[in-house]
């Protein structure tokens, strides 16, 4: 299992242990946090929902792709679902590797792909009492452009 969901807080210490290897000279991780604003709105909390059967399969494929493309030792991604408060960790990616360069590249690849390939949805609750599903409601069109831009970045990095 290279990708999994959790409903509880992500235990980064335990996750890091799973990547340890005497052949690895370093470890890179990325933590995604719930921030207090988005698109000019003050955010008070988030809810994450996932189509888990498919997301786990696709998440495993993304991590497997990273392991094929970059010569790293181990990689793991954990995504949280449920109701999250400001500052909570929503997603964690860890990669261990012989050298640092490919560890950064693999970590970046995984988080970018996870963000736009996995069937995971995020509902933002705002200070003004409003709420909305990110990319599904008022900002559906701009979100498409963001994705395209990320793809180009990624292709450039991967080369």
């Amino acid at each position, binding site marked *: 299992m290279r990708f999994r969901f959790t409903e509880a807080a992500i235990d980064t210490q335990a996750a890091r242990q799973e990547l340890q290897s005497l052949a690895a000279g370093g470890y890179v991780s990325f933590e*995604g946090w719930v921030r207090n604003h988005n698109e000019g709105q003050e955010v008070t909390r988030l809810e*994450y*929902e*996932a*189509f888990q*059967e*498919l*997301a786990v*399969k*696709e998440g495993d494929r993304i991590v497997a792709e990273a392991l094929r493309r970059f010569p790293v030792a181990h990689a793991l991604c954990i*995504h949280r679902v449920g109701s999250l408060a400001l500052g909570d960790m*929503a*997603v964690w990616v860890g990669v261990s590797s012989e050298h640092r360069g490919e560890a950064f590249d693999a970590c970046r690849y995984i*988080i970018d792909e*996870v*963000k*736009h*390939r*996995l*069937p*995971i*949805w*995020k*509902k933002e609750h705002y200070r003004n009492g409003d709420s909305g*599903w*990110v*990319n*599904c*409601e008022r900002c*559906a069109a701009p*979100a*498409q452009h963001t994705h395209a831009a990320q793809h180009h970045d990624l292709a450039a990095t991967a080369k």
Partner: protein
Amino acid sequence: MSSQVAPVYGLILAGGSSTRMHRDKAALKYRGSSQLDRAFELAGRHVPEVFLSVRADQTLDPMRAQRRMIVDAIAGEGPIIGIRSALAAHPRVAWLVLACDLPFLSDEAVDYLLRKRDSAGFATAYRSAHDDLPEPLCAIWEPAAAAALAEYQAGGGHCPRKFLIRHAVPLLEPLDRRALDNVNTPEEYAQATAALESAAPMQLHVRYYALMREQAGRSEESIETSAATPADLYAELKSRHAFSLPREQLKVAVNSEFSDWSRILRQGDAVVFIPPVAGG
């Protein structure tokens, strides 16, 4: 007087003596069920109570006797008597009136009629795709129509279709041209049977997430559908649940794997529509 919107009950019309079919139309079978049973089941999926409209001489008919009935209580003949009798029996109820001889009538068509209901008017009805005239026997008749129908009959009228024309009731365009096709002759019956057997509906399981779960008001449902592909299925469900997202913004999964929109669906498939994602 309450100004609340009247509840809707179902009224199945199966009283016609069917001279052209040479047999009781209510007993005609499609895919193993009689027209009468199919009409009851269809209406029962959309409204809380369903009654059968019968003439006084039909109350002991074995096919009809086990149903809750509304017996014609007004002198005369034809569907207008059945509609008026129901309105008289339950003066605060609106009636989803369905003729039993509409074998292609779908849940989608009934649901659309109910969603477009004009409870302030006399009726909500479809425009026939064949002659552009109102279809009074797949329609919702409001309590307010009772007095106007009585007046119309007192003036010599007897045709509910002409009543709808006279009162310029606004008409809905049918979503499916065939939905209101009725079956009057043995030839039409043979054609309808063949068409229904070849487009045999199947049972599918649909799960909803995020915005679509909220718009559908449920996280899953089992549905019977003739949709051949996920694209057809989305068109059907988008209209049923008033989904806001166009299909171009979605992906689809069948049996927990991403799928093409043109894949042929099979009995028992599990379908998930995937709105724009936002993980991380």
